[in-house]
């Protein structure tokens, strides 16, 4: 083998090594040589649980970034998220730590938020929700178990008694039944008698069950009630229609209630009527004088008397027109 071949093989081998290192790097870094710069968001939690640097951030199950850093900030834990530039997170979206498996792998789930909400800028803080982790669920289960045990114990002592002073419900019921055995058997007998009667078709209930006529009557009554209800419905519909018409200003009442012009006219008429009545009260005008001046009343009375006499004379004078009589009487 000459020197050139040896050098070529070594070169090829070295390049192969570099290529394989590159492939491994690409595979394990998710196909990215340089991390997607993206933008940062901060998610504050009471506890980050099992969340660690490099864990995924997913939106609707799709990976959109990763946890870049975790840190303690005062009285809470913060996760700095690096989100891909292609994904915009809405300001009303919220983040929560979700368990991916039972062996302690977690990821951060981000909700979609609403379309109309503005996008969160770089460095903003995302709203977070606390989810119970397995330990807290276990603790709660333990507490629940204890409560259940206590409740069952209470129920048991209520039913069977605590063995000291209190007698249990079962014992009390037993005593009650023993003491009222006679009454209960009587009540049972009565009940049996009633059901027998009902079976035979005796009494109102029995007839209702066994008599087809009674049933027909009941059905026709119900039909009538239905009919009445339907009529009432029609009546209400008509009334509603009238009310609607009135509201829309149709018809006299409508005009009266809703037409501004008609209202104004009525006001004017009332005002006129008032001025007329005031004039009458003051004795102004013919009608006022007629009401307030006694001489006019007396003249009218004498005219009426004359008219009366003239009418009496009608039988004697033959067919004279009433106008002629009145005229004669007056003048």
């Amino acid at each position: 083998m000459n020197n050139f071949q040896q050098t070529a093989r070594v070169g090829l081998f070295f390049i192969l090594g570099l290529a394989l290192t590159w492939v491994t790097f690409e595979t394990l870094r998710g196909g990215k040589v340089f991390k997607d710069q993206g933008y940062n968001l901060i998610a504050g939690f009471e506890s980050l649980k099992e969340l660690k640097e490099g864990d995924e951030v997913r939106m609707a199950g799709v990976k959109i970034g990763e946890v870049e850093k975790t840190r303690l900030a005062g009285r809470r834990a913060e996760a700095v998220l690096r989100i891909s530039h292609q994904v915009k997170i809405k300001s009303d979206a919220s983040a929560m730590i979700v368990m991916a498996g039972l062996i302690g792998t977690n990821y951060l789930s981000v909700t979609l938020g609403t379309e109309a909400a503005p996008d969160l800028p770089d460095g903003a803080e995302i709203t977070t929700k606390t989810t119970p982790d397995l330990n807290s669920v276990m603790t709660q289960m333990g507490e629940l178990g204890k409560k259940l045990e206590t409740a069952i114990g209470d129920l048991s002592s209520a039913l069977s008694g605590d063995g000291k002073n209190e007698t249990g419900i079962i014992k009390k019921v037993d005593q009650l039944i023993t003491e009222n055995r006679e009454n209960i058997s009587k009540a049972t007998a009565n009940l049996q008698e009633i059901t027998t009667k009902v079976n035979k078709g005796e009494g109102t209930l029995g007839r209702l069950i066994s008599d087809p006529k009674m049933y027909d009557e009941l059905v026709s009554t119900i039909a009538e009630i239905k009919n009445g209800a339907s009529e009432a419905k029609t009546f209400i519909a008509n009334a509603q229609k009238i009310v609607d018409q009135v509201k829309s200003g149709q018809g006299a009442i409508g005009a009266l209630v809703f037409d501004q012009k008609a209202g104004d006219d009525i006001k004017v008429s009332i005002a006129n009527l008032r001025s007329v009545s005031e004039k009458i009260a003051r004795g102004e005008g013919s009608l006022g004088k007629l009401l307030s001046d006694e001489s006019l009343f007396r003249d009218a009375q004498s005219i009426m008397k004359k008219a009366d006499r003239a009418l009496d004379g009608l039988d004697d004078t033959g067919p004279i027109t009433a106008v002629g009589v009145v005229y004669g009487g007056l003048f």
Partner: protein
Amino acid sequence: MRQLNNILEGFGSTILLLFRSIGYLPSLPRQFGRFVEQCYLIGYTTLPIVAILSFFIGSVLALQAGYSMQNFGAKQFIGSLVGLSMARELGPVMVAILLAGRVGSAITAELASMKVYQEIDALVTMNIPPVRMLVMPRLAAAVVMVPVLAIIANLVGWFGGAIVSKYTNFISIDPPAYFAALRRFMEFKDVANGLIKAEVFGLGVVLVCCNIGLNTRGGPREIGASVTRAVVTSLILILVLDYFVTKALM
């Protein structure tokens, strides 16, 4: 006491050899031919045995993991187990052991025979430092080639595990699921960790073998003894260094 003295003497001379070699590093371009030759021997000719061995180590690892894990339903994590084991531990250690057995023994045998047949003395007489001509190119070649061998060992081992996981009845895990598990629990950091370890082991093995070869004294029988000593020392060094390097890189 004498043995302890020998150990300390060997340790000190190895460290000195390293520093002397680093001192001759600027002369590397002038010895490019020698460097390529050593690269060829250390890297290219070692590749087949590394590939075969790592393939079967990956396969056995998957087989054993599948057998143990099927009892508690954790078969889907075989990928991550094989991946992490190969990248962090078995790949670098196995490459270093093969290097000690195949290349290290050859280096010691060559340098020991040169020493025994006074070729080294001749070089010194000609004012050619043996370290510059014989040790430095080998060290440089090891530094360049051992990580390449290690990454190939890793990948071949992973594929061996994937094939066994697919075609073994009681495992039956498809390659996509296997590699998904591998990717899920692995980072490039783990692979880089393994490559650094391989680098340290390779450097240590070549250095120890060169040192033992150059310090051979006596007749031809000593050549064989030196080779045995070099391989044994290299293996012990690999495992001792493995612990400390792993601890340091954690």
